[in-house]
C-alpha cells in the first residue's frame, strides 16, 4: 500500500489545543523500557486513567466517522449481521448503519466512555480488549478503531488482534485502524525516522475540565495528560495481523492512519 502525503486535509484525529511534540530518541526508548517493565501498570497510567479523566472532552471531539469505516458499515455489511466494536469509545460507529437491520454491541475499557455510549441508546459493555466477553465466532464483523496502538508491547498488540479474530465466524471480517508513523503533513509531523513509541499530550483547557471546576481545585489551570501510542510503520499492521494467525484481506491508509481488514486464514 502507498499513501499520498500531499493529499491530506486537516486531520480530525485529535482535539484542538494540543502542542505538537517532538520527542527525542533517548526519551522514546525510555518510554519503551518503562512500558516493558510492567505493560499493564504502564497502560493503566498512560492509557486507561487518561481516558477516564478526559472522557467528556474526548467524546466531544469524536463525532465524525472516518469515511472508509462509514462506507464499510453502510455498504459492505449484510443485513442481519451482528457486529462488535471493540474500543467503541462514545459509540460513534454504533449508529452509523441505519435502518435497524444490523445488531451492534460495543465494548470499551473506559467506564466513562461506555456510559456516554449507553446514554445514546447503544448496547455496550465495559471490557478489556485482552479479556473480551464475546462468544467465540459469534460476530460477522468486528471494528477496532484507534485501540491497538495504545498497547505498549508487540506481544500485547498481536494478542489483541488474536482476540478480535476469535470473535468472528469463519468468513468474518476484522477492521482495524491504528495511528501511522508516516504523517509528515499532520501537525505532529512524525515520519519514518521518528520514534514509534510516544507519549502524546492531551491538553484539557481549564474551562473544559468540569471535574476540577466543580471541586474548585484547579480552576483556571490547563491539565495535560500523556497517552501512550505505538505509531505503526507501513506494513507493520499487516505483519501483526499475520502474526496473530489472521489473513490480510485488504489494507490501506486514511488520514494519518493505517488500516487492515483481517480474516481467518483459509486453512482454519
Amino acid at each position, binding site marked *: 500500500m502507498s499513501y499520498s502525503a500531499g493529499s491530506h486535509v486537516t486531520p480530525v484525529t485529535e482535539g484542538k489545543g494540543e502542542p505538537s511534540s517532538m520527542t527525542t530518541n533517548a526519551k522514546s526508548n525510555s518510554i519503551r523500557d518503562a512500558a516493558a517493565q510492567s505493560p499493564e501498570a504502564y497502560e493503566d497510567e498512560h492509557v486507561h486513567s487518561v481516558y477516564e479523566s478526559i472522557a467528556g472532552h474526548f467524546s466531544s471531539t469524536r463525532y465524525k466517522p472516518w469515511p472508509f469505516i462509514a462506507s464499510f458499515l453502510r455498504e459492505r455489511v*449484510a*443485513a*442481519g*449481521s*451482528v457486529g*462488535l466494536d471493540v474500543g467503541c469509545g462514545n459509540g460513534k460507529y454504533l449508529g452509523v448503519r441505519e435502518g*435497524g*437491520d444490523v*445488531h451492534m*454491541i460495543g*465494548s470499551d*475499557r473506559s*467506564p466513562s466512555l*461506555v*456510559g456516554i455510549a*449507553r446514554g445514546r441508546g447503544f*448496547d*455496550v*459493555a*465495559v*471490557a*478489556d480488549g485482552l*479479556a*473480551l*466477553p*464475546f*462468544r*467465540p465466532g*459469534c*460476530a*460477522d464483523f468486528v471494528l477496532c478503531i484507534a485501540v491497538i496502538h495504545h498497547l505498549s508491547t508487540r506481544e500485547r498488540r498481536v494478542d489483541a488482534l488474536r482476540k478480535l479474530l476469535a470473535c468472528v465466524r469463519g468468513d468474518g471480517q476484522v477492521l482495524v485502524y491504528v495511528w501511522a508513523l508516516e504523517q509528515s503533513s499532520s501537525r505532529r509531523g512524525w515520519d519514518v525516522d521518528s520514534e514509534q513509541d510516544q507519549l502524546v499530550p492531551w491538553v484539557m483547557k481549564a474551562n473544559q475540565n468540569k471535574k476540577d471546576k466543580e471541586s474548585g481545585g484547579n480552576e483556571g489551570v490547563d491539565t495535560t495528560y500523556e497517552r501512550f501510542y505505538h505509531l505503526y510503520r507501513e506494513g507493520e499492521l499487516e505483519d501483526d495481523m499475520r502474526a496473530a494467525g489472521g489473513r490480510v484481506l485488504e489494507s490501506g491508509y486514511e488520514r494519518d492512519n493505517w488500516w487492515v481488514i483481517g480474516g481467518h486464514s483459509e486453512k482454519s
Partner: protein
Amino acid sequence: MKVLSLNFLTCAVKTCKTQSDSYPLHPKDAELVQDDIELNEAFLINLLPRIDWKALSTTATELGFPALPSTPPTPEDLRADAKTLRDLHNLLLETQMVEGKLVCASCGHEYAVREGIANFLLPSHLV
C-alpha cells in the same frame, strides 16, 4: 442491554473460554425494562442463524419468559406465525436487562450490570 446481546456474551476469564458451562451467563437479580421497537421481520429472520438457540432458551427461562420450543423456528415458521414472530421480537429486541448480575457457571464470577451496562473488567487474580 438487550436479551439479544446476552446471547453473544460469555465469561471474560481466559480459562473459562474452553469450559462449556461458561456460556451462557446466568442472569441474577435481573431487573428488566421493555422498549417499544418497530418489528422488522426480515431482520429477525436474518438474525436467526446467528443466535445460539439453546443458550437463548436458557436465558429466556431464567428471565421468567415462557419456555421456548426446543428447536429454533424456521424462516417459514416466522413468516407464517405472527405470534411467534412477535414474541421473539419482544424477547430479543424489546427486553433489556438494566440491573443485576451475569454469573459464570464455570468460575462463579458475577459480572455486575448497572444502568444497562455490564462490566467485564476482571479483578487481578482472574486475569
